[in-house]
């Protein structure tokens, strides 16, 4: 049964130095509050897993807490590149980051295999690209048709963290809007934390809503506005201006560091 904790207690209890950690959310519902708390608690040497690193991993990489990054698209959606991600790969600043990259289809299937507790997933993909030789995939023959397919290894993070609109007091979670790979990430992980906009007495089931039962979640923490500058459909809006601001501001190492000191390190989390 999910424990209802504060974000800081949940991060302190679930995330350790050296862990593989997946903070998911496909453009929507990105768990910024939890990621910022990981930075504040000074976690180190993490293997960060995420389909679209987005600004959150740009911040975590820029603060030097990642030793390895597993991903499929490292851009600022609709704006351009991620400057801290680029600086780490191009110039090892503030530290070298090992990378393992995939296609979206590959990452999605890796999470699905992880959720199913299968060792791998089978798909059509990667063939003919230079990615094939640079990442962990292997050909596999279909025993029924003889077709050569591609196998991708399951992803089973030590910890997965996702954000959702709401949970009830038992820790059952409901999210709606773009569902990304949140459910898969939670089910694939050893431990999981779901931060939510609000805790309610009873979940009001929504069309297209995804419910994750409390008994497969380790901890739930209330974090109102916890996906900003991403968004939680129906509750907060995506701060597109911030994504544009980030593109300009984060080009410079000093400006970035100053911004993080002021806006993340120097700020206590604003929730219970």
């Amino acid at each position, binding site marked *: 049964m999910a424990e209802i904790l504060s974000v800081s207690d949940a991060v302190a209890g679930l995330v350790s130095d050296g862990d593989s950690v997946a903070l998911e959310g496909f453009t929507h519902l990105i768990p910024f509050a939890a990621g910022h708390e990981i930075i504040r608690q000074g976690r180190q040497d993490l293997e960060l897993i995420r389909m679209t690193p987005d600004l959150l991993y740009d911040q975590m990489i820029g603060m030097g807490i990642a030793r390895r990054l597993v991903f499929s698209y490292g851009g600022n959606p609709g704006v351009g590149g991620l400057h801290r991600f680029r600086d780490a790969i191009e110039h090892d600043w503030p530290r070298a980051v090992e990378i393992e990259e995939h296609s979206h289809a590959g990452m*999605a299937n890796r999470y699905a295999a992880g959720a199913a507790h299968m060792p791998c997933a089978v798909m059509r993909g990667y063939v003919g*690209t230079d990615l094939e030789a640079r990442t962990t995939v292997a050909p596999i023959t279909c025993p029924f048709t003889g077709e050569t397919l591609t196998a991708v290894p399951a992803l089973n993070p030590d910890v997965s963290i996702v954000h959702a609109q709401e949970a009830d007091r038992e820790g059952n979670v409901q999210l709606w809007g773009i*569902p990304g790979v949140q459910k898969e990430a939670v089910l694939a992980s050893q431990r999981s934390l779901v931060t939510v906009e609000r805790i309610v007495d009873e979940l009001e089931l929504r069309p297209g809503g995804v419910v994750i039962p409390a008994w497969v979640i380790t901890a739930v923490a209330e974090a109102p506005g916890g996906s900003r500058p991403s968004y939680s459909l129906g509750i907060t809006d995506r701060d597109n201006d911030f994504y544009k601001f980030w593109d300009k501001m984060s080009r410079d190492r000093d400006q970035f560091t100053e911004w993080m000191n002021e806006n993340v390190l120097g700020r206590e989390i604003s929730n219970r």
Partner: protein
Amino acid sequence: MSVTAREVTAGETQTIVAARRLRDTKTVFIGVGRPSTAAILARMVHNPELILVYESGTIGAKPFHVPLSIGDGELAQTADSVVSVPEMFNYWIGPGRIDVAFLGAAQIDRYANLNSTVIGEYEHPKTRLPGAGGAPEIAASCGEVIVIAPHAKRTFVEKLDFITTVGHGDGPGSRERLGFRGRGPTAVITDLGVLEPEPGTCELMLTEIHTGVEVEKVREETGWELKVADDLTTTEPPTDEELSALRELLDR
């Protein structure tokens, strides 16, 4: 005053030409930026029934504004169906349910293979680009691919630094050998003109040139010896309807 009184920019022409390609299309897969603008414009002017599919899992989105990201709230709120990422790739893209996909790239070669991974060496890149995203499997499986790219020598290169996405591989038969289901790139729409694979060789050939652009200019901005079609046509200028719809859309 007629809308055409204001000069038409190369970017506007590129978007309008891309939108025209969707006249008879049922489903289109789009990323953000110009492809998204073109697809919304196509729904406004040419094809109101066009079904827009975004990578974020929104199928049948009907955005009123051009979204900044593929995951903007308006896409989910207006969609016929919203699905998870594994479902998007395994049930919708992989089986070839989408007719046309728009893709962009930092580099493109004469067989319309695309690079969006690195400039320079992989281990020590000069420029680290975002990476593959959905492109490899989208290009393998969607009915056809239309590439939208700025026409410049650093984009249209003799040899890619990294093959992120296969277009026509190394020529005829490549896609069949790799087991791809879709037809691959059928057009590359740039701010100077339109390139299409030459039947028989699959090599990109200039088939259409935008008004006021010289063939020499297109050659200069292409990093290989560019073939030009014998029956090269000039792009039909944007109509008042297309232009005013596009400008109205971008002002929303």
